[in-house]
């Protein structure tokens, strides 16, 4: 028997569940695949319907979670195997080598500054590049650099003719002596009594909706890309710009709802948060530049949470946002790389076209691709959409006793609901390990 709990996934749900359990005096192992905890919420600019800065309200929780005496945070790590049953699970975790000694690194950024190798910046949704030696993002927790083995010159290019490594700049400049090219991946075995799955979502790739021209047209972006573009810590420093070579400030923006959701050819379900996040994104655009006029193309506005309907009404009245009832049919492009939207205005029954400066696709949110692997490891059942299966009167219980699921990995929901579920999952787990 063990009185520790494993939490898989370090987004807002995983962080909240860990904090609750740690505060109850239980030991928590939080395993996160990426180099920092924070998850999707760390990538958002603001949250609805309060327009709070997302990272500003998240960062204190990240720090509390990391610094708590009852937590062990394993970032850049993945769960490989789970055996046993409720009260006594044995977990094998692969902790990948960062090539940086976490105890010595001060997170000063000197290695990143001098590293000559570039890689796509995944935290910024691939908009722009980062270095091979890097911090995952500005407010990363733990604040420990790492070296990307797929892009590091030293690790990919081999030795020179006279047997010397081709690069080592990071090691040369690190005053803490934290760079360690000899570091190896390690396997860690944990013994826990309960497990909480909080692996969140991936944005649905809209490339297969060929009528919307994503990837074909530079000024058609996804909502997650837009969040990074308008965020002060994003690739443009928060200056909202078009991605075409002109880099112009957009004055008209179209938000397209239900991209790949509520669609039998893609995902049947409603992703639940897009009506609100598009409203938020349109409000933010207008706050950045009062000349911006946004159009939100919707089928139904699903503003069914606390304060949501009022938020939509304010967007219309105060922030130059127009709602148009139509599922956009097609996006073309004019000679100036401006997206041209074709749609039927279902209220006036007219087919119209509208030329805008920027299009934002509210893509569906789908369970992370590795949910299937994790379900196999944990023997838990997934539903038809690959969300972890739960039941109405046990909404955080998976099909395996002692294993719980919270947040978007078990169904569409927003941040407050994910947090509430995380606390519920923590309470359920605590019953087992008490």
């Amino acid at each position, binding site marked *: 028997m063990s009185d520790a709990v494993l939490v898989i996934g370090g987004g807002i749900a995983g962080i909240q569940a860990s904090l609750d359990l740690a505060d109850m005096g239980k030991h928590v192992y939080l395993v996160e695949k990426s180099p920092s905890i924070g998850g999707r919420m760390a990538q958002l600019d603001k949250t609805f319907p309060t327009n709070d800065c997302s990272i500003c309200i998240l960062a204190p929780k990240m720090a509390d979670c990391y610094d708590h005496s009852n937590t062990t945070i394993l970032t850049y790590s993945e769960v490989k195997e789970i055996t046993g049953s409720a009260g006594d699970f044995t977990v094998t975790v692969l902790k990948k080598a960062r090539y940086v000694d976490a105890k010595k690194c001060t997170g000063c950024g000197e290695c990143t500054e001098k590293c000559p190798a570039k890689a796509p910046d995944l935290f910024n949704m691939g908009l722009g590049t980062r270095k091979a030696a890097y911090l995952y993002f500005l407010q990363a927790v733990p604040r420990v650099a790492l070296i990307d083995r797929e892009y590091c010159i030293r690790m990919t290019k081999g030795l020179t003719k006279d047997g010397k490594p081709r690069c080592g700049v990071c090691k040369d400049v690190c005053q803490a002596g934290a760079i360690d090219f000899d570091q190896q991946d390690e396997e860690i075995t944990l013994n826990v009594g309960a497990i909480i799955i909080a692996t969140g979502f991936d944005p649905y790739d809209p490339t297969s*909706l*060929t*009528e919307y021209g994503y990837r074909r047209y530079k000024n058609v972006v996804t909502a997650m890309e837009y969040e990074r573009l308008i965020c002060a810590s994003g690739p443009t420093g928060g200056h909202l710009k078009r991605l075409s070579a002109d880099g112009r400030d957009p004055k008209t923006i179209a938000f397209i709802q*239900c991209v790949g959701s*509520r*669609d*039998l*050819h*893609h995902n049947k379900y409603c992703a639940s948060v897009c009506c609100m996040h598009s409203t938020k994104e349109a409000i933010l655009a207008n706050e950045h530049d009062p000349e911006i006029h946004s159009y939100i193309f919707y*089928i139904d506005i699903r503003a069914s949470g606390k304060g949501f309907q009022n938020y939509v009404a304010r967007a219309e009245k105060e922030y130059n946002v127009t709602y148009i*009832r*139509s*599922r*956009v*049919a*097609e996006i*073309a492009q004019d000679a100036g790389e401006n997206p041209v939207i*074709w*749609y*039927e*205005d*279902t209220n006036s*029954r*007219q*087919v119209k076209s509208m030329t805008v400066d920027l299009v934002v696709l509210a893509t569906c949110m789908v369970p992370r691709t590795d949910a299937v692997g994790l379900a196999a490891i944990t023997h838990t059942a997934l539903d038809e959409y690959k969300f972890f299966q739960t039941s109405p009167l046990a909404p955080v219980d998976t099909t395996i006793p002692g294993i719980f699921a919270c947040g978007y990995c078990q169904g569409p929901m927003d941040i407050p609901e994910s947090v509430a579920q995380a606390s519920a999952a923590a309470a359920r787990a605590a019953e087992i390990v008490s």
Partner: protein
Amino acid sequence: MSLEDIIQETKTFYCLDCGKCTGLCPVSRYNPAYSPRVMLENALFGFQDDLTYNHDLFSCLTCYACSSKCPGDVDYPLFIQKARALALDAGQHGDCAHSGTVQSLARLMSNPGVSQNRLEWLSDGLRISTQSDTMFFVGCAPYFEHIFDFDSGAIDAVKASLKILNHCGIEPVVLPNERCCGHDMLWTGDVETFRRLAEHNAAIIKEAGVKKIIFSCPEGYRTFKEDYPKYVDINCELQHISEFLADRIAENGLDFSEVKRKVTYHDPCRLGRHLGIYEQPRKVIAALPGIELVEMEHNKEESLCCGTSAFVNCDSCSKQIRVDRLLEAKATGADTLITSCPKCQIHFRCAMTNKGEEKGPDVEIEVMDLVNLVANALGDGHNE
């Protein structure tokens, strides 16, 4: 079939009323009165008269631009096909183009007593047989040759297809008593005539004892593949000639002479969105040495229709769709617009005659069937 049955069969009740169909519809862009969404809305409300007495019921191109992207997966073209049968029962029919000649010919052919002089075009050393396992379905091309006052190119495509098959060592069965496949009858609501044509064709094909049928017309191909099984038993392998060619090229290659052309390819709705065949014609074009293939803005799944189907309600809206498509083709810088449907070819060639217009935009571009492009590159020698 009642309106209720049609709604059930085409899953119209899945409609989200979102308007994606209408936004994608090539007709709705030029004819503001026409909205597939409103058509379905009327059906769901049970307003049958608003459907059957609506002249625009026959304006639908049945091109599947709507349904291929419909989030509710409603089969709108099938809905239209069935609703037209209801309309016909109520004495309503669309405006038949070319004085109704095409429809009249189809109805004439449905009479079992009619004998046709169907093979007069057969010449130029093209070889057919009565013994082969493989049949070539000619379709309406011999009639098209005499209906239009411009060169339709339809019979040339049939000759080119035979030349290709002969070159590949196939002397196909070509039946002298073949009838119209019935496509236009089915899609204008005349199910009875369609059934008679299908039964006649099924009987003569059974008698010929062939195992495989090759088509150069995508409408005949679609009709045999998707619609005949609901009425008759054909029991043959069916293939479009672009599929046949793509297979041949992949297996052992064909010896082509150089083709110095820059071409763009127009996907016919029947071959493309109806049957999902996008890659084979492109593979065939790519196999021709020296050729350059450039894509139009709307291609493959997003390809635009040639503007009319079943020779009904061909109007200024159809003309505008055609002109736009030709302008798209010209914008690629291609010198030739390739298609693989005799009707697409007819409609584009018709649009270029600029009938009824004083001076339209310059839409002149050479329009050619894929089989002509290929046959020309095969040279004169026939493989024995």
